[in-house]
C-alpha cells in the first residue's frame, strides 16, 4: 500500500478511542501504581471528546492534517494532566506535515517524527526517563528504516511494533521525569502508562490501515 487517505485518519482516531476505552482500566492501574491513577480516564475522556467532535462535523474533513488538528485541539482542551499538552502538541505538530488528502510512507515518517519532536519540546524528557518518549523515539527510528520500502502500512507497522517494544522496555526503568519520578527506585517494575497509551495509539493506526488494505 503506497498511500493512506483521510478516511484512514478518521478510522485511526476512532479505533484509538475504542482501544483506549477498552484499555482504560489497564492504564489506570499502571498509573495507580506509579502515578496518580488518572491516565486511563484522561485518555478515555479526551478521545471520547474527539469522537464526539468528529461526529459533529458539518462538512467532511478534507486533509489528514485537519483530522489531526481536530484531535490536537480537542485533547488540549479536555485532557489536562501531563498527557494532555504532550499528546496535544504531538498531534498539532503532526497535523502540519500532512496538509493533503492522502499520506504516503514519507508523510507517515514525518508524522511520527513531528509528533515525537513536539513531545520532547514540551516535556523535555529523553529516552530512558520512563515516559512516553520511550515508546515514541524507537517508533521514529523504526519508521525511518521502514520508509525505504515505500509501503505506508509497513511504516506504520514498524512504528507500532517498536513503540510496543519500547513500552515494554520501560518496565525495569527508574523514572526521572513525570509523577513516577517521585517514587525513585519504587518506580521500577511497572510499565509507564504514557508509553503504554502510545503503543495503543500506534497499534490503532495499523488496525485502521489494515482495514483499508483488506
Amino acid at each position, binding site marked *: 500500500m503506497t498511500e493512506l487517505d483521510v478516511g484512514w485518519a478518521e478510522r485511526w482516531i476512532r479505533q484509538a478511542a475504542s482501544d483506549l476505552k477498552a484499555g482504560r482500566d489497564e492504564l489506570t492501574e499502571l498509573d495507580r501504581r506509579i502515578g*496518580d491513577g488518572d491516565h486511563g480516564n484522561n485518555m478515555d475522556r479526551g478521545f471520547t471528546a474527539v469522537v464526539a467532535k468528529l461526529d459533529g462535523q458539518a462538512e467532511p474533513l478534507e486533509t489528514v492534517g485537519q483530522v489531526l488538528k481536530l484531535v490536537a485541539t480537542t485533547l488540549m*482542551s479536555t485532557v489536562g494532566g501531563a498527557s494532555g499538552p504532550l499528546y496535544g502538541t504531538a498531534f498539532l505538530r503532526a497535523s502540519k506535515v500532512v496538509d493533503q488528502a492522502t499520506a504516503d510512507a514519507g508523510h507517515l515518517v514525518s508524522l511520527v517524527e513531528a509528533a515525537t519532536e513536539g513531545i520532547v519540546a514540551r516535556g523535555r524528557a529523553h529516552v530512558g526517563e520512563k515516559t512516553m518518549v520511550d515508546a515514541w523515539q524507537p517508533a521514529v527510528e523504526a519508521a525511518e528504516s521502514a520508509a525505504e520500502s515505500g509501503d505506508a502500512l509497513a511504516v506504520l507497522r514498524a512504528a507500532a511494533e517498536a513503540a510496543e517494544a519500547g513500552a515494554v522496555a520501560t518496565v525495569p526503568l527508574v523514572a526521572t521525569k513525570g509523577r513516577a519520578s517521585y517514587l*525513585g527506585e519504587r518506580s521500577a517494575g511497572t510499565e509507564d502508562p504514557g508509553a503504554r497509551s502510545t503503543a495503543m495509539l500506534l497499534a490503532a493506526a495499523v488496525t485502521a490501515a489494515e482495514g483499508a488494505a483488506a
Partner: protein
Amino acid sequence: MKKLLDDPAQAVTDSLRGFGLAHADQISVHTEPNFVTRAGGTPAGQVAVISGGGSGHEPLHAGFVGAGMLDAAVPGEVFTSPTPDQVLAAVQAADAGAGVLLIVKNYTGDVLNFETAAELAEAEGIEVASVLVNDDVAVEDSLYTAGRRGVAGTLVVEKVAGAAAARGASLAEVAALAERVVAGVRSMGVALTACTVPHVGRPSFDLADDEVEIGIGIHGEPGRQRVQAAGASDITRRLVDSVLDDIDLAAGARVLLFVNGMGGTPASELYVVYGVARQMLADQGVEVVRSLVGSYVTSLEMQGVSVTVAVLDDELLELWDAPVRTPALTW
C-alpha cells in the same frame, strides 16, 4: 467505594455548582470551561492572582477565592491539571489591567498546561507572571525527579500574593513576594489511609492495617517510605525532622506552623500533631509566630496530615495577617 456523588464523571461540576450556590456572595462559578472568580471581579487596576490544579484538594484552590487572596481558581478533573483553555478563560476573566500572577504547583501536568495558557494569554496582550511552588521535602529536587512537588505551602503563597495584590503592588512585586514565600516554605506529609479517586473506584495504594506511608504528595501517590504505624509523636517527629533537615532555620527564626489535614482526619488529631510539632520547633529555638490548623489542602478522604513550616519576615507576616474573606479562610 462509597461517596456522596452521583455520576463520577460529573462530580467536579456537581460540586462546583453547589459551591457556587452556597457562596454566591463571595464567588462566581463559571462552567464550560470550569473556573471560579471573585464575585464582582478583580478590583480595577489590581494584579489578578490566580491558581489552579487538579480537583480533590478542596478547599484549595476555589475556597480561597475572595477579597485578599485569589481572584480566580481553575479546577481540573480530580487529580488532573486543568486544560490551557480553562486557565486562559480564567486569566481573561480576572485580568483587571494590571497583569496576572499564576501560582502553579510543581507537577509536570500543571507546569505544561499553565505554561501553554500563559503563552496564549500573552499572545492576547495580557501580562502574565508565574511562580512555581515546590515545598514538598519528600521529593528530592534533583536531576532524577521532576523536582519537589507543590503541596500545602501553596496556601501560604496564595495568601501572601493575594494580600500584596490587594495592597496595590505591581505584578513584579507580587511575583517577587510569592517567590520569597516559596524560598522559605517546606512541607512533609503522611498518609494513614489511601484515598479513592471517584472514577477509579479503588484506593490509590494499598496499605496494611499497621502501616503508614511517609512522604506522600497530595494526589494519593505512594510515598517515600512505608513504616509501621506508630503514635502521633513518632510520626510527627519524622515529618518535622525532614522539614528541618531541608531548610536552614537560624535559632530565633520566626515561622508560621501549619498543620494540614488530608481530608479524612479529625480536627482533634491535627491538634495533637500540632502540639508535638510546636514543641519540636521550640526545642530548636524556632519561634512560632502564627499557626494554622485544619484541612485546607487535601487528598479527597485520605486520613493523614502534613506539617508546613514557612519563614515569615516582617513584610510576609504583615501580608499573612492582612484581612482575607474567602469561603474557606477568613480573618
